[in-house]
């Protein structure tokens, strides 16, 4: 089963790279935006991060972060949990499996673009 999954993943990656090389890119507009890319990357390296941690890490404003985080949440790339800690509201973000896959796809895309330009 695991072998089959790995083979499928490999095929999927090959397909994506071929598509990009053939000039039919499917660029993921949701994470292409700089701050959203930052949010996804930061969450890929952590199990979860709070709103304040992300804000400090990405050096952005409350409004900017919440707008972009909501877009990612709507796309199903991140999961948001709201709770209270010492009576203060706490918002926590986690990357979903589809968010992780989207980041992997995006990395492949960038990699393929660089390779395609080098080969020219």
């Amino acid at each position, binding site marked *: 089963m695991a072998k089959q999954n790995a083979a499928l993943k490999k095929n999927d990656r090959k397909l994506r790279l071929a598509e990009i090389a053939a000039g039919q890119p499917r660029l993921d507009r949701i994470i292409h935006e*700089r701050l959203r*890319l*930052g949010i996804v*990357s*930061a*969450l*890929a*390296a*952590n*199990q*979860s*991060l709070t709103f304040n*941690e992300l804000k400090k*890490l*990405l050096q952005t404003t409350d409004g900017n972060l919440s707008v972009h985080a909501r877009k990612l949440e709507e796309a199903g790339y991140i999961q948001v949990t709201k709770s209270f800690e010492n009576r203060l509201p706490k918002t926590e973000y986690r990357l979903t499996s589809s968010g992780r896959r989207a*980041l992997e796809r995006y*990395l492949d*895309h*960038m*990699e393929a*673009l*660089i390779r*395609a*330009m*080098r080969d020219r």
Partner: protein
Amino acid sequence: MATVHPIRRAPVALHDHAMDNLRYIRQTMERAASFTAVPGVGGVVIGCTALAAAVVAAGRETLDGWLAVWLAEGLLAWIIGLAGTVLKSRRSHMPLLSGPGRKFILGFAPPLAVGGLLTLALYRAGVGQPLPGMWMLLYGAGVFTGGAASVRVVPLMGLCFMALGAGALFAPAVWGNWFLAAGFGGFHVLFGIIITVKYGG
């Protein structure tokens, strides 16, 4: 004749933009991972072994015997800490010696090396009294500087060690072993639990 300046800058080549994006992803992941590069579970285990070491060391009557127990504990803690960091970096898909790991080592190693040399010098002079305070001060300084870019709880742990170390330095010599138990034992367990619960692993 006046020079004509183009209104727009030359467009950025596609592959340069892609390279820039990859660099940004890498840097963000490195900075984010450094947030919690310190292993929480490893800290709890180190705390437990330190508490056991304090009990064993309390029964030793000579400086040699007492020092041997704590040096063995130091080595064991180093192995546990390294294993915890390796496991945590693997889980977060970050190479150990990438940004966060390197930053922590660069901040953490110099005070530890100084501690080793001063321990040797004091041992040769037959002086054991300042050792607990000095160890905790230097360890705390290492955690503080190494974890400066980390979540607030890591440098806070460093500060707590430094405060306890300062207390131990001026406290009666017979309390030294129990100061070590409170610091290397108590603080590691306490902060290890906080890091595990809040930041995972």
